[in-house]
């Protein structure tokens, strides 16, 4: 057995190092959600569109991306991210690692959010659309002023729950060289050879954040979500709980 290394965690420098990682984790999670929400909304609307050339590509994107492992997307953008943007930004463009990670995470999260938002829209009673159309609102106006405000409000808890999944998934971007929480922890234990202590601390930090968020998401029930929508969202949540 090797000596106990718990006393070294009295040193604030170790905590500073871990919190640098935590900051990166939170930035990546927030950036990913910020990118994937509009994209997800777009694909949700695309999937509900009456035009076939919009609907089919949307279905293909959402179902295709959800079938992939997140780590595969992250690894792909980690390797090819820069090359993908070179035709746009010039020959010597280097995609920052941070954004490669965000891209991988958001591609996946946007597909999941698209399904969550679609579940919210579909679950609203048909009478809402019919009434709005009967009052003379166009399809776009109906969506923007009647359907979306209600649907999105219903979906707030599900989206917050998705944020916990995103935070857990950020632990994967360490593999492409982003210094998030787990990666910082790994640096510490390769120095001091104490993975047990470090991993327990890292796991606790993730747990506290994710547990608090998932508890909070239950308090944010704005309005009553129909049973069908709840079931659909449970389904999505189960299938898309990645690491």
């Amino acid at each position, binding site marked *: *057995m*090797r000596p106990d290394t718990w006393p070294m965690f009295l040193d604030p420098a170790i905590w500073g190092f871990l919190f640098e990682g935590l900051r990166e984790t939170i930035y990546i999670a927030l950036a990913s959600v910020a990118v994937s929400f509009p994209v997800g909304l777009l694909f949700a609307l695309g999937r509900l569109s009456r035009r076939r050339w919009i609907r089919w590509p949307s279905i293909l994107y959402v179902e295709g991306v959800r*079938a*992939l*492992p*997140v*780590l*595969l997307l992250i*690894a*792909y953008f980690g*390797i*090819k991210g820069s090359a993908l943007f070179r035709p746009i930004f010039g020959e010597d463009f280097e995609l920052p690692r941070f954004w490669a990670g965000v891209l991988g995470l958001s591609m996946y999260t946007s597909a999941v959010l698209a399904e969550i938002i679609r579940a919210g829209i579909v679950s609203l009673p048909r009478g809402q659309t019919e009434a709005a159309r009967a009052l003379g609102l166009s399809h776009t106006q109906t969506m923007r002023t009647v359907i979306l405000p209600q649907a999105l409000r219903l979906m707030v808890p599900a989206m917050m729950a998705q944020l*916990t999944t995103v935070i*857990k*998934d950020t*632990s*994967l971007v*360490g*593999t492409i060289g982003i210094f998030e929480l*787990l990666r910082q922890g*790994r640096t510490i*234990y390769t120095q001091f050879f104490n*993975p*047990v202590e470090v*991993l*327990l601390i*890292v*796991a606790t930090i*993730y*747990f506290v954040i*994710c*547990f608090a968020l*998932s508890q909070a998401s239950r308090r944010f029930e704005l309005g009553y979500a129909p049973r069908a929508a709840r079931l659909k969202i*449970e*389904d999505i949540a*189960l*299938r*898309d*709980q*990645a*690491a």
Partner: protein
Amino acid sequence: MPGGIAFEFPQLYLTGLWLTIQISVLGLFGALLLGTLVAVLRVSPIAPLRWIGAAYVEFFRNTPLVVLLFFLFLGLPLIGLRFSTDTFENIFRAAAVGMGLYHGAYVAEVVRGGLLGVDRGQIEAARSLGLSYAQMLRYVQLPQTFRSVIPPLGNIGIALVKNTSLASTIGVAELLYAAEIVESRTFRAEEAFIAATLLYLALTIPLGIAVNALERRMLVAR
């Protein structure tokens, strides 16, 4: 042909696919067993057992799987627990155990929902007929649960197959690992990853179809 690169490196992709299948099957088996057990704990009449079940579910649902995998493969040997003396066997078993532990928490939530969905009158009737709590679980409550939980368990199974890709982070040469090696040898990232993607789909799509078929069978049986 998309994925044709797999035929140039058949050895890598085949071993990768085989390891992915093995980890998925072992992990799923472990998750189902553990999840059912924890679900029974969570609905048991004894409060401390319920707390243990709840603590297990909340802990594993709210920590990343990679952290668990690193702990199983690096942490445990240091406190004297090792799955195998052989290094490769050790990481393989760590991955399978990690899959089981992590997804067990999700299975437990689903099975608990199923158990609570059984009409209370049935439980009371079974108990008043003289069945012990264990007998009631075995003959009345659990059998009725299996029907309602099959579709959500199928979703967990699909998630589990996708999550086996995380085993590559601890060095198991499964599908994603194979794709990364092929990429580093050929620099043909798209082809290498598309081949892996198609193989993942070859696992998850039949799983989805099987679950749907099973669901329909169960509905007819009712």
